[in-house]
Each structure stands twice: as C-alpha cells, then as structure tokens.
C-alpha cells in the first residue's frame, strides 16, 4: 500500500475478502473481489454492495441555506419538500464543472451535499469561498460518515430484511433519517448503477456492522471496477471522464439538470450564452461494428480528421457490444453518423448512438 494513502472504515474487510486493491482518489479501494463481470451481473440481476465511504459529505445550514445552495448549484431546489434529493453540478463562472453532486434537502435551512471523493478538498474550498453575503455555515462532514450503496433488483429486500431498515416506502431520489443503534443514519433511494437501490450513511462503526450483516446475508461485495461498468452502461457521467473544469454540463449532454430559468447561479451567464449559441461539441454514445474496445482518450475520426475523443469505453458486460461515450464536435454528434475510432495502430468503424446502452431499472412508481 502506498505511504500516506487513506483507508475507509471497511478496509480490513476488503483485504480479508482478498479484494484487488488500488489507489483511487487518495484512498486504497477495492477494484474487484471475485471479478468485475460477476459483480456487475450480481447488481443487474440480484443485489450487490459497494463501499463508498470515500465519498464526501458537506452540510450547509442557516436561514439562507436554500438561497445559497441555489447560488452554487445548477439545479433548482426552491420550495422542494423535505427529504427530496437533487442531482446537478456546481460550475465555475465560465460554465466549466467544479463537480457533480447530490443535494439532499433536510429542511429549508439545512442541506446535505454528497460530492466526489477526488474533489473533496477542491469542492469544500469552493463551497466555503462562495458563502460571502449568505447567512449560512458550511461543515465538511466527510470524515464522520461511512457509506455503503446497496444496489440491484433485490436491494429493497436486503435492506429491509438484513438490516431491518424500513425503506419500502422510500421513493426514488428521496431520503429519510432513521434513529437506530444509538445514532441517526441517512438512507436514500439513490445509486450509480441504473438499478434500484439505496445509499446508507452512518458512523464508521455502524457502517462496519451494516457491511458484516450484508455479507452474512449473501449480498455480493462489489468493487469500483463494476461501479464504473454499471454507471457507464446507463449513460451516467463520471467526473474526470465526461465532466471536468473544461467541460460544461451542456456539453456533457446534462442540460436537463441546468435550470437557466433560475434567478441566478454561478456560471449561469456563460451557460445561457452557450445554450443560445449552441454547444460546439457534446457527449454522445458510440457503437463499434466490431469487437475492439474503445478506451478513454482514443481519438474519434471522420475522413482521417480528428472530430473528438472517447471519454469512457468498454465491451458492455450486459449487452456484449463494444460501446463508448465520446466528446464529439458538431455536426458529427448526430445520431447515425458514421465515425472511426483509432485503437492503437488501426481504426475501427462506429456509429453515433444514444449514450444509454442499457435501460435503467429504477423503482419510480
């Protein structure tokens, strides 16, 4: 293990299970236990659990909490019911993306932000920097929370029966706090796999007990390897691939989360003008004719000219097809456009398709 690398509260469990460990976002994290394919299929068809304790949590409190969150967040939390969750981004003035995150509305005066592990320091600094003029306090609670994600069609059964948590009534993208084992935990019906599932936030000791109960109940331990293949297949972005300081949410084809009709938010002017002019490039899906595998950074060409590059690519475990998300210049982003992906010394023909390679299976009723 690298010197100075951080570990989550479940690290000893991963090592005991024989996981392949690797540094990710400053943490020594499990990439896989039995294998990416097996873990991926467990989440698609049964239930799996991920250690996501490395994720960051930030609590924003104060009389102007709602107004402040709306200032730093591109989605609109105005007047939302308590317990609602929003997905969206924080942007720079130029429209580039600071991070993508979930915002949990606790009350009009309290919000809970869940941010990417790799961006915790940057995000917390950004969030604190922009509180001037708002009556709010910001607390980085990342160190006090462990977190697991229980995902898959049998997630509800696992959380209810193995953990004894009442979650059947929880709607998609809502959360509740539950008093249990002497502490207040947070459970949300959210995830990053395209399947039904829950994310559970509690103390490190609670998180360890949750993990052990899920293991004893036969839930598949799942690593970051299949977390990426799962999110990719349903077209969900990963910061660093489909989003970055150089990529706006509009370019990432995430405009449905950007509420330009809001009074103001950081980046609004730049994003409004980008929308008016039309983006010059955007994230689309690619499907290769053959079975070579497109990877992050590989060039996409038309008539020998580079028109974009792959942001994430895999042989889809669920469909068996070689597919990618790619940032493509206009007008080659149109569905059905024929392009070529350069893989090592050769090019391979591909077609522009929708970036959802597998249908989501959320429980929305």
């Amino acid at each position, binding site marked *: 293990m690298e010197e100075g690398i951080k570990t989550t509260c479940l690290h000893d469990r991963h090592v005991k299970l024989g996981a392949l460990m690797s540094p990710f976002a400053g943490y020594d994290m499990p990439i896989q236990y039995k*294998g*990416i394919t097996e873990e991926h299929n467990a989440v698609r068809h049964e239930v799996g659990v991920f250690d996501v304790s490395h994720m960051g949590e930030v609590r924003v409190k104060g009389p102007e909490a709602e107004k402040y969150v709306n200032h730093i967040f591109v989605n609109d939390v105005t007047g939302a019911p308590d317990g609602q969750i929003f997905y969206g981004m924080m942007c720079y003035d130029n429209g580039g993306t600071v991070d993508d995150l979930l915002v949990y509305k606790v009350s009009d005066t309290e919000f809970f932000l869940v941010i990417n592990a790799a961006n915790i320091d940057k995000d917390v600094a950004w969030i604190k920097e922009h509180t001037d003029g708002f009556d709010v306090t910001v607390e980085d609670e990342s160190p006090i929370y462990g977190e697991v994600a229980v995902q898959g069609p049998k997630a509800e059964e696992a959380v209810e029966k193995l953990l004894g948590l009442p979650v059947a009534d929880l709607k998609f993208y809502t959360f509740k706090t539950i008093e249990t084992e002497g502490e207040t935990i947070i459970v949300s019906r959210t995830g990053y796999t395209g399947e039904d599932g829950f994310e559970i936030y509690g103390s490190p000791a609670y998180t360890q007990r949750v993990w052990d109960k899920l293991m004893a109940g036969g839930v598949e331990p799942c690593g970051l390897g299949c977390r990426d293949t799962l999110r990719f297949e349903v077209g969900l972005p990963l910061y660093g691939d489909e989003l970055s300081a150089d990529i706006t949410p509009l370019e990432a084809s995430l405009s449905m989360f950007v509420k330009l009709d809001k009074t103001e938010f950081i980046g609004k002017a730049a994003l409004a003008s980008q929308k008016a002019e039309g983006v010059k490039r955007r994230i689309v899906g690619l499907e290769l004719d053959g079975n*070579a*595998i497109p*990877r992050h950074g590989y060039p996409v060409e038309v008539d020998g000219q580079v028109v974009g590059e792959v942001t994430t690519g895999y*042989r889809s475990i669920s469909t068996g097809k070689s597919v990618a998300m790619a940032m493509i210049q206009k007008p080659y982003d149109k569905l059905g456009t024929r392009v070529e992906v350069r893989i*090592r010394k050769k090019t391979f023909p591909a077609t522009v398709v929708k970036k959802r390679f597998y249908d989501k299976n959320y429980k929305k009723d």
Partner: protein
Amino acid sequence: MSTVKENVKYAESHEWVMVDGEIATIGISDYAQHALGDIVYVDLPEEGDEVEAGETFGAVESVKAASDLISPVSGEVVEVNGELEDAPELINKDAFGTWMIKVKLSDPSELDALLDAAAYAKICEE
C-alpha cells in the same frame, strides 16, 4: 495464487517464451492474467508481420483496461492463435497452455537476455 511454469523463458513484462528449434511460442504468464482480471479481447498481429524484441506486438484487454503485449524476441510471425478471437477467456483459464503467437527467430541470442523461472518468480513476488 499464481504459478510460474518451469522450463520456459520470461520477459520482465510478463510474457513467456517456449522455444522449439527456431520457433518461439509466446503467451502471457499466469501472474499477468491474474493481475489483469477477466480478459475480454486480445489484439494480435497477423501472420507475416514482423515483431521486434522490446516492441509492442498487440494488446490484451481486461474489462477495465488495455495492456500492451511486448515481444520478448524478434522475427516473423508464422502463426497466430485464432481461437483467442472468440475465446479470450482461455488465457484466464490456462495462461501457460494458451499461446498467442509463434515467431520464427531472427536473432536467437535475444533469448539469453530473458529470465528463467526462478528469476521471474522473484519479480512476481516484489
């Protein structure tokens, strides 16, 4: 745990070489297949292509990533294991029993620079 096969030569980049006369048969080690995880694609040269010692001759791809294959020897590719096109997982099942290419050696002295099983086993332990 991974195994190291006796009586074959190894490159530090985890390819194995078995020599029969002037023909070298090349694959990747059990340690390498284990480190890669589920192999889903193998990109190999064609018969008649020239490979050079220390240069890339193809790639092996797990679900997660592509890794270059480095040729331990120089020469002409005389045979390619076509089975791997449809069944790359054979490498995971039996790395030493699953060859990738056969090369007609142009400079057999290159073999002297390769590792024996004991020296390779040491590298895998590090």
